[in-house]
Structures are given as structure tokens and as C-alpha cells.
């Protein structure tokens, strides 16, 4: 081309350069287009993901918020009758059952989980590695299986459904979560701290109690709160062992049948009364609020911990 205008002989190097530039710009145009499409699809995927999840949150607030009141949390349920189809009463006994069962489950699981975490952090032997594998596999074990276990050993043996059987199932579900979090927290305690204490002549139990545990406590607490959040919402094992049907009476005694909130939601969702089906959303919002409080405080502790470590 240049040869026609300038009258000079063709320059092969210049022509080659122009060809390369042309190809490069074509390639860039093509790659930019592909990139635009791919990033566009990403936005679409994010939108598709957020629509149903947003719908869950919206339904919870939309259908649940009108139930929230002090009366709802503290009074007993009332069965709808022909005269008053819309009476629902409260969920006081379910709140009480949830508090009793989950507090006892934490009481069982926290010491075992924390000491197990200490064991896993301390030993690298073959049995410890095996136990570490068991702990990780138990973390993903479907919770209904623990329900079958608690049924066989507690409901059958005691000849009665009971809150305590649910405590056992939930406790076993909580232990691996707490143990794993504690192990990581203990492992992150600086070696120098422990060695300094040992060099001063402290026994290992004293080092564990006064050095390792206090330093690792935020990490341990994070794990405990996460495990508790999981246990509070757990439905499947509770449904098998806590009670034969949903109960409308006060009961603080864990050796008797109980109806914690997840079980009440399941019962109300399948109820024949429209008022109970509606009230299921009130219970669900209460339960989700409880879970949100537990997970959020767990996250606050862990972010603060990270910030302190950085500074």
C-alpha cells in the first residue's frame, strides 16, 4: 500500500507489522466481547441466586412480623375452635423447650468439645489423626441419623419421648463443630508463649489452663456459638425423639416430652388449621432471629480477634 502512495518499493517488514497490528486488534475485540459476555453471565447468576434467597427473607418478614409480641413469646398456644378460628395464643412452651434443650446440649458438648480440641491440637499420633478424621466426618453426618441413635438408646430405654433424648442427639452434633474450631484456636496460640511458660516450670495442665485457654478463648467461643446456632435450628433428630406430637402445655422438665421451636414449625406447617399454618411464620421468624443473633455475635468475635492479631 505504502508503495503506491510514496512510489517506494514495498517494505516487507512494514507490511508484516501492519498485519500483526490488525490481527491483534481483532483478537482484542473478540476477547473483550467474550469477557463482556462472561462477566454479564456472572451478574445474571448473582441475580438468579439472590431472587429466591431474597424471597425467603421477604416471606419471613412479611408473614412473620405481625406475630411478634411479648404475649406471643410468653403465653401458651390455644387450639382454634369453631367460635374463634383465628386464636393462636403464644409459643411460650416452645421457647422454654428450646432454651432448656439447647442449654443442656451446650452443657454436655462444650467441655467435651473443648477438651477434644485440646487433644487434637496437642497430639499428632496415629490415634489422634484417626480421631481427627472421625471428627471431620461426623461434622457432615446427616442429623437424622443421630435422631435414630437417640431413639434407640433413650426413647426405647426410657419408654418415653423426652427432651433429654434431644439433648443427647444435639450434643453429639455440636461436639465435632466445637472440637474443630477449638483445635484451630489452640494451634494458633504462639509457640513462644507456651514454651516460655514451660521454661518457667509450669506444668502442662497449668499452661493449658492459664496460657493456652485464655489466649484461644475467642476462637473457642466462635465455635461454640456456631455449634449452638446449628443446634437451635436442627429439626430432624428433635422430631424423632422430643415428643410424639406438639404439646400445648408448660413443661420445664427435660425428662418429659417437649416441643422445641423447630418441631413446632414442622407441626404448624402441616396443620389442618389455617391459623396455625400462618403462625408457623411467626415461630420461624423468632427462630431465625435467634440463629442470626448467635451467628452474628460469633462473627463479631472472630473479626475483632483478627483485628487484634493484626495490630
Amino acid at each position, binding site marked *: 500500500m505504502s508503495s503506491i502512495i510514496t512510489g517506494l518499493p514495498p517494505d516487507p517488514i512494514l507490511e508484516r507489522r501492519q498485519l500483526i497490528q490488525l490481527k491483534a486488534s481483532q483478537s482484542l475485540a473478540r476477547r473483550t466481547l467474550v*469477557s463482556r459476555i462472561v462477566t454479564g453471565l456472572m451478574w445474571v447468576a448473582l441475580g438468579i441466586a439472590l431472587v*429466591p434467597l431474597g424471597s425467603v427473607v421477604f416471606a419471613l418478614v412479611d408473614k412473620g412480623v405481625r406475630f411478634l409480641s411479648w404475649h406471643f413469646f410468653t403465653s401458651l398456644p390455644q387450639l382454634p375452635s369453631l367460635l374463634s378460628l383465628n386464636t393462636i395464643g403464644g409459643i411460650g412452651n416452645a421457647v422454654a423447650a428450646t432454651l432448656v434443650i439447647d442449654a443442656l446440649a451446650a452443657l454436655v458438648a462444650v467441655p467435651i468439645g473443648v477438651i477434644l480440641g*485440646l487433644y487434637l491440637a496437642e497430639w499428632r499420633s496415629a490415634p489422634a489423626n484417626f480421631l481427627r478424621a472421625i471428627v471431620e466426618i461426623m461434622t457432615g453426618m*446427616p442429623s437424622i441419623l443421630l435422631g435414630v441413635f437417640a431413639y434407640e438408646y433413650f426413647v426405647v430405654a426410657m419408654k418415653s419421648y423426652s427432651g433429654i433424648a434431644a439433648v443427647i442427639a444435639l450434643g453429639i452434633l455440636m461436639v465435632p463443630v466445637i472440637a474443630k474450631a477449638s483445635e484451630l484456636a489452640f494451634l494458633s496460640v504462639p509457640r513462644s508463649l507456651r514454651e516460655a511458660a514451660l521454661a518457667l516450670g509450669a506444668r502442662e495442665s497449668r499452661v493449658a489452663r492459664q496460657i493456652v485457654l485464655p489466649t484461644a478463648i475467642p476462637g473457642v467461643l466462635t465455635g461454640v456459638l456456631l455449634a449452638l446456632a446449628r443446634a437451635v435450628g436442627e429439626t430432624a433428630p428433635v422430631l424423632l425423639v422430643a415428643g410424639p406430637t406438639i404439646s400445648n402445655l408448660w413443661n420445664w422438665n427435660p425428662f418429659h416430652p417437649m416441643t422445641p421451636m423447630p418441631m413446632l414449625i414442622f407441626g404448624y406447617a402441616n396443620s389442618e388449621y389455617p391459623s396455625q399454618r400462618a403462625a408457623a411464620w411467626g415461630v420461624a421468624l423468632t427462630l431465625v432471629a435467634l440463629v442470626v443473633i448467635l451467628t452474628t455475635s460469633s462473627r463479631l468475635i472472630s473479626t475483632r480477634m483478627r483485628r487484634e492479631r493484626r495490630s
Partner: protein
Amino acid sequence: MSTLTPVSGHQPASEVVEQIRRSATSDRPFKFLLRAVAAFFGAVVVLFVWSIVKTAWPAITSQGIHLITGKSWIAGTGPYGGLPLIVDTLSTTAIALAFAIPIGLASALGLQFQVTPRLRQPLASLIELLAAVPSVVYGLWGIAVMVPFFINTLEPFLSHLTGGAWPFNGPQNGFGILLAGMVLAIMILPTMVAVSRDVLATVPQDLIEGALSLGATRSQVFFRVVLPTARTGLLGAIVLATGRALGETIAVAMVIGSNAQLPHSLFSSGATLASIIAVEFGNAVGTEGSALAAMALILMIITGLVNAGARALTRRAVSR
């Protein structure tokens, strides 16, 4: 605390170290406590597995292979054939993964690399929060919101699409395998996004910036740098989500329609290994309780293998 014995200069160093260790820091009762608690937990797990095997044993001896291959499960009288349950468990999980893997991965990539930082944290928090919502709430949402949507919109549309042919034939009453799969997909999506995003955050920024500086476009960076680097971790996230979908009980039990027959279409009602235990175990008598425990055993073996696989994957990712 015991006092140190005087150390003479003639003792070999190793002996001295051993002596100090024993006298000053060795702490038998403490170590014994740690070992005892660890052994106790191990014993509880053994007892747990044993209780399910023991309960399942009568059904295993009386029904044999029929527990896996039998095509029909009739509550109360038998026969107790587990094939429909296994088919339904695998098909609902497959539907869930078919939606949750691509959408979850793409959302995680978008959230980590596309969304402006100011929007990223609130969205990530919302998704992590949804990962903690109890499954019974997803089940309730499935009944109240998804069932009407399925009956009025989605099922007629899909049926129209194929002219009423398989797999979209049969009664359109909302409850069924397709709904259970979709609810599962929505349930495991937050876990999928949250875990994948954690994995993507570990991809070194140098690699990404290096590729960009060489003229790679964003999609090239994703496909040739980010995904290959994070491959093992992302696979771990997928396996984790699979395990959750296989074992999910309550949400599935609420929306699948509880009918343990082989499905004719995606609209058929069904029952999974986990959901039938939740629905039937409380009022099962005689052999049925034992047959349900056998289903629990099958579920335990499947999820145990899946979780062990996830563990092996993540360990390899860490050691590399």
C-alpha cells in the same frame, strides 16, 4: 510442684532433658484427662454406628438384597424395598447440584471480583446469614411460596414445553421430586457461594495482576488463572454441598410428597432415604423400624464416603 534434682555434669544431655521433662512439666493426670475425653468421644461414635447396625440387622437378615433392589416400600406391612428411596435421593441431589454448582460458582466469582467493594460485604453477609437459616424454614417457604408458583406457573410451562412428555408428565400438584430438588438447590446455594468465595479469596493477587498486565481479559483471567488455581478448593466446596444435599431431611420431607414408589416423572411425589426416616420412624412397628434403620445405614455409608472424599481433597489442597 516438684523440685528439680541437682544435675551432675557427667549425665548425658538427653537424660538431663528427660529428667527435667519428667520432674517439672510431665503431667500425667492432665494427659490422662485429654486421652479419656478423646476415647469417650470415639466410643460414642462407635456406639452410634453400632446402634444403627444393630437396629438394621433383623431387616438385613430377613430382607437381604431386597432392601436395596426392591421396587416398592409399603409402610406397615412391607415389602420394604429401598430402590425408590435411593433413586429419589440421587435425583433430587442431581437436580440441586445442576442448579447450585454453576450459579453458585458464577455468583462467587462475581461477588469476589466484579461487585464493588462497598456492595460486596453486605451481600456476602446476607448470603452467609442465609447459610445459617434452619432447613425447616426453607421447607415452610417451599410449601407456602414455591408450591403455588409450581402449580400455577412452572409445571404448566414445563409440561407445555415438552407437550406433556417425559420428564414433565403426570399430576401437577407442586409437591414432588422437582420441587424438592429446587428447594435443595436454594438451600445449598448460600453454602456453595460462601465456601467458594473463601477459596477464591486465597488466589494470590500477584497471579491475577500478572495475567492482567500481560493483556488478558477478565474472562481469560477467570478461566486460565483463577479457576485452575482454586480448582481443588472449589471441588471441596462442591463435595461439601453434595453431602448436605444427600442428607437433608426436613426441608425435603416437607415438599417431596412422601410416596416411596419409583417415580414416573419429575412431577412425581417421592421419598428420600433421609425423609422417609423422619416421616415413618415415629410410628413404625416391627420390621419397618429395622428396615428404616437399614436405610439410615445406607445413608451413613454414602455421606461418610462423600465427606471422606471432601476431606482428602481439602487436605491435598492444603499440603500443596
